[in-house]
């Protein structure tokens, strides 16, 4: 049953600022039309996109065409599909049939997939409307969205700052109300870190929860698609749609998918919350540490029980990640050779064509990672690097398994810093890699993690709180995240643009 006061409040909002569940309510009651909603989104894009640069491709014409059709179906269908008429933005590394999918890379600048990724197919089944493809670090390699062949995306809270990455376009689009919600991908923190830096919710599901078919691979054993949303409820709605086994992806788990919205509002009393001592480190921004600790106190006041835990191999996570992820990437990106599709540079012979195509088609960070990965897999180095890293990965996984024997979820900061200045770390890859120090272990262990807004620093930059769960237990962290969100107002704050 819907509360009248709630409805009245919604009516007074700009349609573009709505969440999925809010827009659903208004659309189903014919308070607004799909066209109104879509138009509102594009007006908002028109107004702020020049500053934010969240998109690489805006699909307005298609979206407006789809609006009428969606409108007709509302009410016609016995039970309206969850996303019917809802405008969402998609990171440009998920294949969309007939719509360019570039990964923000010159090498794929003209690539138009003749197939649809499984996640977007599932969104289509639920009736979503694509507003545009969002900017990203080239091939999802980066933590600032500066490694885009087009242009960097800006942080809506401070246009001098980066939005985080690699799903910076999606995070910025959600934060600046250029879409109702978005999908991103997370290989080492690429959903959670930009969510934290842009003050939105970002969820990386368990590895295997969501099909990777049609997601342009960076590191196959780590990549996972997830939602970036304005609140936790929307994250559960999108997770419901995109989860589940896919016969086209052997690594997607053949497990039943619960209704994640069912956990919303459940009591968190007695839930044991692990606080790993390795995640409160020197070099962290003081204000971040303070806000995260306050958030933990808040959770405690809501009934959760903080327990100190140890994840002893945390210190090896970045090194491990940068060996495994780059190794897989060096192989995954071999197909961009100028032979079949995408960018091709001419050359006097085959080898010359390969060299020119890849030298001109890839950006500096991508080339750096291809070289790192190629090196790590080379004969004579394989044992010392790749194999060793796999062994450490197992230890990191075991760290979490041991912690989860004692606690139900783990809580940490999402990022050691708030958004940094454009160009600040671009010349120093190691500094840049440290941005993901708190998110990377989660990918290595394959467990789910969510970042939710937990406050703002004195210079008005958002800070994120990360909750980490057991394998295939997104429910616990969503329950905690929702309880925290209900008790705070951070998620309601919007940047002034």
């Amino acid at each position, binding site marked *: 049953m819907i509360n009248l006061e709630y409805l009245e409040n919604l009516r007074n909002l700009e349609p573009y600022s709505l969440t999925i569940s809010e827009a659903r309510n208004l659309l189903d009651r014919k308070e607004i039309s799909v066209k109104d909603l879509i138009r509102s989104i594009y007006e908002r894009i028109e107004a702020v996109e020049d500053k934010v640069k969240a998109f690489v491709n805006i699909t307005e014409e298609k979206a407006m065409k789809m609006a009428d059709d969606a409108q007709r179906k509302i009410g016609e269908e016995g039970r309206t599909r969850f996303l019917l008429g809802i405008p969402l933005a998609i990171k440009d*590394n*998920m*294949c969309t049939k007939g719509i360019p*999918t570039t*990964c923000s890379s010159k090498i*794929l600048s003209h*690539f138009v*997939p*003749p*197939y649809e*990724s499984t996640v977007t197919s599932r969104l289509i089944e639920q009736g979503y409307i694509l507003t545009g493809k969002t900017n990203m670090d080239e091939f999802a390699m980066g933590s600032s969205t500066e490694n885009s062949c087009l242009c960097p995306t800006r942080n809506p809270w401070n246009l001098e700052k980066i939005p985080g990455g690699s799903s910076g376009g999606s995070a910025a689009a959600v934060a600046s109300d250029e879409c109702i919600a978005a999908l991103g991908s997370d290989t080492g923190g690429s959903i959670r870190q930009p969510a934290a830096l842009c003050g939105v919710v970002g969820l990386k599901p368990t590895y295997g929860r969501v099909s*990777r*078919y*049609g*997601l*342009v*691979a960076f*590191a*196959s*054993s780590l990549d996972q698609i997830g939602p970036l949303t304005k609140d936790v409820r929307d994250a559960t709605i999108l997770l419901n749609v995109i989860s589940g086994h896919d*016969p*086209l*992806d*052997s*690594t997607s788990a053949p497990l039943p998918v619960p209704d994640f919205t069912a956990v919303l509002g459940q009591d968190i009393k007695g839930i044991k919350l692990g606080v790993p001592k390795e995640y409160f480190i020197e070099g962290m921004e003081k204000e971040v540490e303070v806000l995260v600790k306050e958030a933990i106190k808040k959770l405690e006041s809501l009934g959760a029980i903080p327990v100190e835990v140890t994840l002893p191999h945390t210190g090896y996570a970045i090194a491990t990640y940068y060996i495994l992820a780059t*190794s*897989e990437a*060096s*192989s995954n*990106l*071999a*197909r*961009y*050779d100028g*032979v*079949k*599709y995408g960018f091709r540079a001419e050359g006097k012979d*085959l080898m010359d064509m*390969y060299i020119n195509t890849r030298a001109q088609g890839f950006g500096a960070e991508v080339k750096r990672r291809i070289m790192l990965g*190629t090196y790590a*897999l*080379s*004969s004579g180095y*394989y044992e010392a690097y*790749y194999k060793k890293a796999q062994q450490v990965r197992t230890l990191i996984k075991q760290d979490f398994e041991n912690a989860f024997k004692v606690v139900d979820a783990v809580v940490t900061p999402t990022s050691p810093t708030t958004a940094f200045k454009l160009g600040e770390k671009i010349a120093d890859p190691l500094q840049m890699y440290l941005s993901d120090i708190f998110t990377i272990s989660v990918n290595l262990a394959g467990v789910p993690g969510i970042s939710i807004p937990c406050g703002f620093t004195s210079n008005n930059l958002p800070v994120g709180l990360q909750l980490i769960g057991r394998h295939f237990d997104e429910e616990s962290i969503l329950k905690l995240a929702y309880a925290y969100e209900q008790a705070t107002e951070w998620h309601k704050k919007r940047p002034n643009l």
Partner: protein
Amino acid sequence: MKYEAVIGLEVHAQMLTETKIFCRCSTKFGSDPNTQTCPVCIGMPGVLPVLNKKALEFAIKTGIAMNCKISPYSRFARKNYFYPDLPKGYQISQYELPICEHGYIEIIANGEIKKIGITRIHMEEDAGKNIHGASAWGGGLGREVNYSFVDLNRAGVPLMEIVSEPDIRSPGEAVEYMKKLRTVLRYLGVCDGNMEQGSLRCDANISVRSLGQKDFGVKVEIKNLNSFKFVEKALEYEIERQIKIQEEGKKIMQETRLWNSERGITEPMRTKEEAHDYRYFPEPDLVPIIVDQKWIDEIKKPLPELPDTKRERFVSEHGLPEYDAELLTAERPLADWYEEAVRLGGQPKAVSNWIMGELMKLLNEENKSIEECPLKPKQLVDMLSLIDSGTISGKIAKTVFEEMYKTSKDAESIVKEKGLVQISDAGEIGKIVDDVIAKHPKEVERFKSGEEKLIGFFVGQVMKLTKGKANPQMVNELLKKKLSS
């Protein structure tokens, strides 16, 4: 000094699945370029491989037939290298944990059964095909082009790589091994064994050492051996080459060489082509393959009787010599043909003789396989009983057999129609013998003066007059009797 060759073969067998190993495209041979492709097998961004269960089943089947241990846990790996016919820039193969290991097959070498070890059998995807030069365009471009073209129809077709132990000691054994491998694969129906179309391809590793030496010599790999003849010729050439180098006191280089069938020699490959570091690592897009005993048993149950078992049975139950049994079991349809004839009452060795002699000769003349044979086992058996009953002679039987083969009529009607019934009447034959003796007084004189081999001449004359129908034994006896009287 005496030398000994040490040979191991790596055989690539294309599996007879209807669809490719990681997508559902057809594996049909000979279609227009790139018509049997999809985003998965042309390596588009974001697509993922899904293992064809049939390919796995075929590999397990082959492993069982070759006495291998089937790995309960195996996985795919990526073999990384750049080439235009390799759309992903890596080949999905198996490396550290192949599906089958530690098996063997039996061959007959110098009349004895010899086991050749199978190190491993693994699954992998085939690459596409590059087509070079202007002609590849098929005209229509209106100018000379120097392009190469890529056909990806074959990309993703499932292969098995069957690697032998270095147990082979001669080019002859290598050919026997290849033939046996082909026989087993065809029995199982997992590969058509067509070497011309490339369904069965072979690389060889070969070294030479002095006889009695324990350590292996330096190994040379020979690629591109796409017929039994080439396997034999290339290995013969290579053994000679390596012995010559050793005798000159020089060192053999470890290298990859290519068989040049036109010149009949092996040539070193350009080093650029072999300087690969494949950077193998586990394929993260596919989950490990778990095979349980229950499934292995299910696959095992309907397996056909395999050539070695069949051969042993033909020897022990039918009393055939090893040689006959080995030849008859080389092709399953041939063994079936033989066995049907025996089941219908044919005497095994007689059936075997007729198959390996007349039947093979006639089939070979027309380049036909046993499956296309117009003659039914029943016809042979009926003809054999006519011989046994003395109705026709063995010599006449050859004529009858040929006639049966050509007309598909049965033996009895041919014998009747052509009046081929054997003359076994002593009186009738006696008259003809008298006739012949009377007509050839000179020869009779020579015979009597000791030129005994002239008996053949007289037999020939009698046969000529009777159109071969006279019972040869009786002719012999009567001639001897009458000539010496």
